[in-house]
Structures are given as structure tokens and as C-alpha cells.
């Protein structure tokens, strides 16, 4: 199962992801025209001043998704295969139960349509727009297993080097 993973230590807070997201979800899919469409946010770069860090916050498509569990109309559903939490705007009534239980606060409010708005993980794209746009690779898109395997490599190498050095 592929996920969008965040590496806040690499984020420089440039908001390229936010812009790419807005363009991708605009009618025109054009940067300049998209801005005039007053796009609604699905991704939020949060600044955390006490740690001088920026953290891109977007839907985690949780496996045990609270928003799906509480939705009274069935507007939020989870794809059994991909785990993507989908939002059906036609059934949504804008009661905001989902928004009030979301642990990450990433379900927004589409003020024109008066319904919820959230990350749909760019169904028309191979790689989500935010990930493609990130200049520092703070956002990556990959299999969770692969990513953690890659993470294990560095400490394993360090450990091996340490053992080798001390037994020499």
C-alpha cells in the first residue's frame, strides 16, 4: 500500500506542495488561472516556531479512519484495496463530524459547496501533485515497507561498522 510520507526535517516551508495541490484540483489546472478560482486547501504547511520547523499536514488516509467511522451519511468511504479515504461531495451534508474527530485537523471546509474537502491523493496522477512538487523531497510517495527498509539500512550500517571497529 502506497502512502505519502512526511520528513519534516527536510521541509523548508516553501509551500510548493500547497500550490501544486491547488493547481491540480483547479478547473483549469493552470497556475495563474487556478489562483483566480480561489482554490480550497487540502494540504496545510504548519509552522512550529518553538522548533523552527515547518510540517506539511495532509490526510494520512488512516487504516482505521475515524472520519469514515463517524460519517452519518456514508459520504466518506475507504477503498479496500488502496486504503484511500474518499469523499463523495454529493452525499456530504456538511455536519463536520468528520472534521471534529480528525486527529490531524486536515478535513477542511469548502465554503462555496458547503461540504467537506480533503486530500483525494490525486486519482488522475501516478504520483500525487504535492510529492512531485516538493523540491527537498520532504514528501515522498512509496510503500511503507520500502521506506522503513531504507530507513533501517543506515543504522544497520552504523552498527556493523561499530562492531567491526571494536573487534579489530
Amino acid at each position, binding site marked *: 500500500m502506497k502512502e505519502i510520507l512526511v520528513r519534516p*526535517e527536510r521541509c523548508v516551508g516553501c509551500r510548493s506542495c500547497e500550490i501544486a495541490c491547488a493547481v491540480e484540483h483547479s478547473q483549469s489546472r493552470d497556475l495563474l488561472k487556478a489562483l483566480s478560482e480561489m482554490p480550497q486547501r487540502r494540504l496545510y504547511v504548519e509552522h512550529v516556531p518553538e522548533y523552527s*520547523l515547518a510540517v506539511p*499536514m495532509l490526510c494520512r488516509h488512516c487504516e482505521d479512519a475515524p472520519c469514515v467511522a463517524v460519517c452519518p451519511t456514508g459520504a466518506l468511504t475507504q477503498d479496500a484495496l488502496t486504503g484511500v479515504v474518499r469523499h463523495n461531495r454529493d452525499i*456530504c*451534508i456538511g455536519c*463536520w463530524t468528520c472534521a*471534529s474527530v*480528525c486527529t490531524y*485537523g486536515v478535513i477542511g*471546509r469548502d465554503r462555496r459547496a458547503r461540504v467537506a474537502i480533503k486530500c483525494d491523493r490525486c486519482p488522475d496522477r501516478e504520483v500525487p501533485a504535492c510529492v512531485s512538487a516538493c523540491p527537498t523531497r520532504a514528501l515522498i510517495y512509496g510503500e511503507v515497507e520500502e521506506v522503513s527498509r531504507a530507513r533501517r539500512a543506515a543504522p544497520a550500517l552504523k552498527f556493523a561498522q561499530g562492531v567491526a571497529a571494536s573487534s579489530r
Partner: protein
Amino acid sequence: MGKIYLDPERCIGCRSCEVACEREHGHPRISVDKVKDLAAVPVYCHQCDTAPCAAVCYTGSLRLDGDMVVFDPDLCTLCGLCFVACPFGAIELDSVIHRCDLCGGTPVCVMTCPTEALQLEDIDAITGSTRSRAAGVLAARVRV
């Protein structure tokens, strides 16, 4: 004006909101459901942004006004469509319709809630503070 939001982890199931609402309106418009005695959830009108109750109301007795659903009892025919349409069961029907009017802006259920489980807030403020708290937790992990 804000709407009523629930932090279910704070609710202790004391039913103070129910008793206060009943005192204010004669008939409670909020009710607390205990789930297997291991959690409690107040169920109430969410003043939904698309308002299914107002959408089905053919007399215009219930209609969306800004962020809130308003009710004109004079136009109501007690047809019960709103009662059917509400996914929360927050509308009750006997000789009149019982539904939340946010007590004109200062809901007693929110004011009386001992644990601040019910809050009168703008949803963007709630999600915003949740988001910055979650971001803070993540940032703390990175910097330690």
C-alpha cells in the same frame, strides 16, 4: 456564529447538557447515548452546512440562513419530512417540532458542560488548533 462541536474523549456521560436543555426548552433537544457503559456521546443538531432538514422542507418553515438552520413554526405543517431526513435523529416530533436553535447564540448545553466536551466554535478554528497540535508533536519528535 460558531456551531456546537464535541470532543468525545472529554464526555463523562453526566447528561448535564440534557437536563439543562430540558430546563431551558421544556423538551431536551440533545441526548446522551452511553455505549456499553464504556463511553458516552451526546447527539445533537449539527446545524449542517447543507441542512438536509431544510432541503426537504417544502413549506420553507426550516431554511438555511447563513451558517444556521432557522425555523418558523407558523409555516410548519408537522409533515415529519425533516425528522426523516436528519441523519442524527436530532429532530423530535410530537405536537410541535423540537430542534436546536443554539439558544439564540449561547447554548446552555455548552455552558453547563462540566468537562468542556461541548464547545461553541468555528470548525476552522477547531481543525486549525488540532492541526497545529499534531504538527507540534511531529516537530518535537524530529528535533529531539
